[in-house]
């Protein structure tokens, strides 16, 4: 855990400078294979800290695969192979010395379908701090749970029923619970894999608002199918197509003035 603390202090000192920011995540020539399928081809991408980066593209273009490379969730798929380097704060996360468990505490993830544990709301949020030893005693833990639920905007809705199962909440609340659960371990980066695709429009609006608030403290990478969502929440956008990045840049730039023809077709809904 000591490594995390060092970086946390680093981040405090880093006054965000809009123009020249060191990328927090850099990927170089990332290739991913599922068995014989070549899913990602030579991905180079720099992710800036405390921004929201959106990954867009048609289904099966590899954006979710790329996302899962960043916290090594692909390790759980036996047939999956990866080459190239991904660095987090300048450190190769595929290095042998890296403990994946610690990596995933630094790079949290929110999934497509809300997947709270079938435990109480409190235990859902407290689970991460418990396994990572982030709380010295139960008062500490209560505070972490309170802060996380507060920040995810769920506190007022659930404060009277912290011991009810997380699975009993509504879909939007469940997804915010998953976000609260993720920020409880105080990660540097939060990966979101189409977090709103299972939610209704109202719940989606709430989650999007939450994302905008969260970027003050966290770097967020979000995979989305919705152009509007990418336009609303992200500062930068990468357009994936057939396992490659065709275009990457400021969101406003990509949506108003795409340089590649394919991007333009996709954004305007001509294919996808």
């Amino acid at each position, binding site marked *: 855990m000591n490594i995390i603390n060092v970086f946390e202090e680093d981040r405090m000192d880093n006054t965000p400078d809009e123009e020249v920011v060191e990328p927090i995540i850099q990927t170089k020539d990332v290739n991913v294979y599922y068995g014989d399928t070549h899913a990602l081809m030579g991905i180079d991408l720099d992710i800036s800290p405390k921004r929201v980066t959106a990954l867009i593209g048609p289904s099966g273009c590899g954006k979710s695969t790329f996302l899962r490379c960043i916290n090594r969730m692909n390790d759980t798929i036996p047939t999956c192979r990866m080459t190239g380097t991904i660095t987090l704060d300048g450190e190769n996360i595929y290095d042998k010395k890296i403990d994946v468990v610690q990596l995933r505490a630094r790079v949290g993830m929110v999934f497509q379908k809300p997947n709270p544990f079938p435990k109480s709301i409190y235990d859902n949020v407290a689970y991460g701090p418990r396994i990572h*030893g982030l709380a010295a005693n139960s008062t500490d833990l209560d505070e972490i749970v309170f802060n996380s639920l507060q920040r995810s905007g769920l506190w007022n809705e659930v404060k009277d029923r912290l011991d009810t199962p997380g699975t009993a909440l509504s879909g939007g609340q469940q997804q915010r619970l998953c976000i609260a659960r993720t920020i409880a371990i105080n990660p540097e980066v939060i990966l979101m894999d189409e977090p709103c695709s299972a939610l209704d429009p109202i719940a989606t609006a709430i989650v999007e608002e939450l994302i905008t608030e969260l970027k003050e403290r966290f770097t967020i990478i979000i995979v989305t199918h919705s152009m509007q969502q990418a336009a609303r929440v992200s500062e930068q956008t990468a357009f994936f197509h057939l396992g490659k990045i065709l275009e990457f840049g400021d969101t406003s730039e990509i949506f108003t003035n795409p340089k590649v023809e394919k991007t333009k077709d996709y954004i305007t809904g001509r294919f996808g």
Partner: protein
Amino acid sequence: MNSLILIVILMLISTAAFIFGRKKALNAVNGKVSALHSLPGHYGWFSAVISFLPGLTILIIWFLFGNNLVDNFTLATLGGEIQNLSDFDRALYMNDIRNLAAQDAISRPVTEAMTNAAHYYLRTQENISWIFALSAIGISALAALFSIRKISPDLRSRNLLERLILIALVTCSAIAILTTVGIVSSLIVETLRFLDHVPLTDFLFGLKWSPQTALRADQVGSSGAFGAIPLFAGTLLITFIALLIALPVGLLSAIYMTEFASRKARAIFKPLLELLAGIPTVVYGFFAALVVAPAIRSSGEVIGLEIASESALAAGLVMGIMIIPLISSLSDDVISSVPQSLRDASLGLGATKTETILNIIIPSALPGIVSAFLLAASRAIGETMIVVMAAGMAANLTANPLEAVTTVTVQILALLTGDQEFDSAKTLSAFALGLALFVITLFLNFMALRVVRKYQEQYD
């Protein structure tokens, strides 16, 4: 020293290791948990496990081999005439010494040598148990110290602990393999020893089974014959009768329940029929001997047939009842898994339900039904209690279901219960029969699995 006390001591040592290991980890970072690689408890468990395992290993070795060790030490002190005895007689002698030591009755007059040996036995037992116990405690304590010394904030104790857990999981799943190895090797070893006494061809093709070997050389007419053909014939006869009952009844029940019965009727009948599968075989055996055999015998008398009270028919009939649920539930599964589209196609052409079943469903479910049949046959061949209680003991080479026959399983049980003499062809022949039984059932199960796998591939 009592092994229970030893286990408690080992547990205490590892508890201490847990407490000190955890404390050392916490002290190393002044209580700042997040500076540790793993949670404090992981360091504690690491020390606890490292200290417990070596002691436990020694304990297991003691438990498995300690008695043999004491026996061997004791035998080594005895005179040459004992050393020169056959393995079997020496084991008997040792048994008497053990009984003498435990102040139980023994089978021969007590000599001074035996009393001495019994004293020596007790002393050695005491000494060896102390040696094992002390070395277990010593090694555990050393391991505890070593593991606590190793603890530092950078020690990946969680990863190490998890590796140990994973090794434990692998070991557990290897036990299934070990069981098979144990079965095969013990059966083969004893069978080979049996074949020293009786040639393989006599066993496999002999027509006479009477395993009573002479106790004395001058006894008449008891040389023992080990021809297994009558046993296999009897087994097959009873299995055949059982399948003759179970196959039509089971299959028809499955067809009726899947194709004709209403949902409600199915919900009642299916569990009722499966109740038959939950009844212990000893109950079937009692039912066969109490109800079925007398009923068959008396109905035979009515029509003037002489039927043995332990007829193959009675045993086969009851065994048939026992395997009805096996056939019906397996057939039920395969019939329900025939795709609805096939049914629709047939019904859409104007076929009746019966025509659909007979022409479409049964043919496509046939591999599954064959596999159910094979499994049922394997089950019937290996079934013991029904035949022990309802079939005969005398090996009778006949195809007449009204006569008494005996089976492989009945003979295995008869040969191995009651007074045993190890090394006699009689006892060893049980293992040879066991091996034959194992091979046959294994073959049937294997074929059944293959057939059903082929069938699944067809619809995947």
